[in-house]
């Protein structure tokens, strides 16, 4: 046995040098977990700097620029400062739950990384139910929020939590409906299989509407962008994390920063081919796969930052209406349409022949049909929305007491 590829053959190598088999297995799995779990945490440190700089440039400020070159060492300075801050627990708080909440928030995001395929040969665990696993662990975040607010014995926190829970559970529905489309196209819930199914054609071209739905609802799931009602400063002071300070508060924020990037990674895996690069180069040099994945994730992440910084906050009734009266119906119709078109494509023989699934040219006919379907549905939705708003405007102007000049003729 060759012991050159240490990551994949650690356990056999240890056994070879005289270790107990079970112990060797445990050690190799444990080291794998540590590797996969610390990677997003380390990425987050860089993201904090990047996000602050990006937001600052949009708002015509300089951003962090004192500590180190371009302020690059700012996150480290912040961590050192936060370590020296006192842990204040409010008098009426339920101490155990109060302290569980911040790690739970980070945990909900970290757990997603267990099933994300990083390179063609490196994945935390290729779970057959990866997509379902993502939906279930992501709802730990909701739990963390309700833990934090309920235990901190503060009315602002509780009022914030009511909103947050309503928002998070509501936007989980279009998220999962959009997630069903890649599962349907790939015929598998494993994220590795979904990635490999995109070797010929990225799903974002077959299902652009699903990608958009997933992007918007994941933006709401992070409590970012126009949906940042959970920390509406003008109404709720700070929202659910009002009683937290120092390191515990920082963990809520680290969790949020990590969640935004994790959503970018998920968008990359589900819709833009994950680690798949140009011409299958990632199969000969696996680590390049990680570079491709992070690059794609970074593009989605930039888009999320742009949306977050450019759009004003919505009201709570607008937020709920947008979800239940727009996103949920649209995602249901989108799923039905994709299922129908996919079956039609299969029946007409436009789907790539067996063995040719990874060929770009063989994928073009079905992609064209699915893309055209998405465009038609998109235009249909836009026209329905436009008519709806026109009717509302007319009703409102008919109701208003002020008669426009010339309207009485």
């Amino acid at each position, binding site marked *: 046995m060759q012991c050159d590829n240490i990551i994949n053959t650690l356990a056999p190598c240890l056994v070879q040098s005289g270790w107990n088999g079970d112990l060797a*297995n445990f050690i190799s799995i444990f080291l*794998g*977990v540590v590797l996969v779990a610390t990677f997003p945490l380390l990425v987050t440190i860089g993201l904090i700097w990047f996000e602050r700089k990006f937001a600052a440039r949009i708002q015509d400020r300089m951003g962090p620029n004192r500590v180190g070159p371009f302020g690059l060492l700012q996150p480290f300075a912040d961590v050192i400062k936060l370590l020296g801050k006192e842990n204040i627990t*409010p008098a009426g708080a339920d101490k155990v739950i109060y302290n569980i909440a911040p790690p739970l928030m980070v945990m909900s995001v970290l757990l997603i990384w267990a099933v994300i395929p990083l390179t063609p040969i490196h994945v935390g665990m290729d779970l057959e139910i990866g997509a379902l696993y993502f939906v279930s662990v992501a709802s730990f975040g909701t739990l963390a929020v309700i833990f934090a607010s309920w235990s901190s014995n503060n009315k602002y926190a509780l009022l914030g939590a009511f909103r947050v829970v309503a928002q998070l559970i509501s936007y989980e529905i279009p998220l999962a409906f959009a997630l069903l489309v890649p599962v349907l196209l790939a015929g598998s819930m494993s994220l590795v299989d979904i990635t490999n199914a995109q070797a010929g054609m990225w799903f974002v071209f077959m299902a652009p509407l699903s990608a958009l739905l997933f992007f918007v609802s994941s933006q709401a799931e992070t409590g970012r962008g126009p949906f940042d009602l959970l920390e509406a400063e003008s109404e709720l002071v700070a929202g659910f994390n009002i009683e937290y300070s120092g390191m515990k508060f920082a963990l809520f924020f*680290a969790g949020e920063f990590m969640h935004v990037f994790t959503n970018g990674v998920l968008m990359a895996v589900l819709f833009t081919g994950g680690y798949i690069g140009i011409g299958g180069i990632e199969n000969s040099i696996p680590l390049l796969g990680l570079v491709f994945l992070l690059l794609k994730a970074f593009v989605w992440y930039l888009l999320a930052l742009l949306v977050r910084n450019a759009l004003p906050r919505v009201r709570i009734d607008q937020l709920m209406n947008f979800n239940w009266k727009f996103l949920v*119906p649209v995602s*249901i119709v989108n799923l039905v349409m994709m299922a129908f078109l*996919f079956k039609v494509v299969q029946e007409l023989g436009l789907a790539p022949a067996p063995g040719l699934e990874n060929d770009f040219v063989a994928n073009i006919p079905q992609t064209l049909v699915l893309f055209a379907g998405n465009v038609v549905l998109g235009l249909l939705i836009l026209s329905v929305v436009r008519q709806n708003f026109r009717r509302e405007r007319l009703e409102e102007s008919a109701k208003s007491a002020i008669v426009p000049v010339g309207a009485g003729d």
Partner: protein
Amino acid sequence: MEILNQWAFIGIFFVLAPILPAVPIILAGVISPKKPNAIKQSTYECGVETVGDTWVQFKMQYYLYGLIFLIFDVEMVFLFPWALAYKQLDFAAFLAGLLFIFLLSDALVYAWRKKVLEWV
């Protein structure tokens, strides 16, 4: 043992995932000063004393949204296997899925007509 080895990764991950973020909290607890006093630990309320019980009653609206969410979340669990096997199934599978989605979309239409989705 084989199945244990397969799931060991997720198992260890679930144990380690809360421990990793807990480390900085514990570290901060060790090295930071501890000088608690009554005012520092009082509930934050813009400088005035809190009035009444914190755990107030909440709006009925949230409960209704929770109920609708439950319907759709359960529906989703049933739709995942359908989407999973969809590639291998014939056209009847589409009709079956359509019927299922239609029946459950009824709930949304009903709630909409009953003005449950109006924020009051």
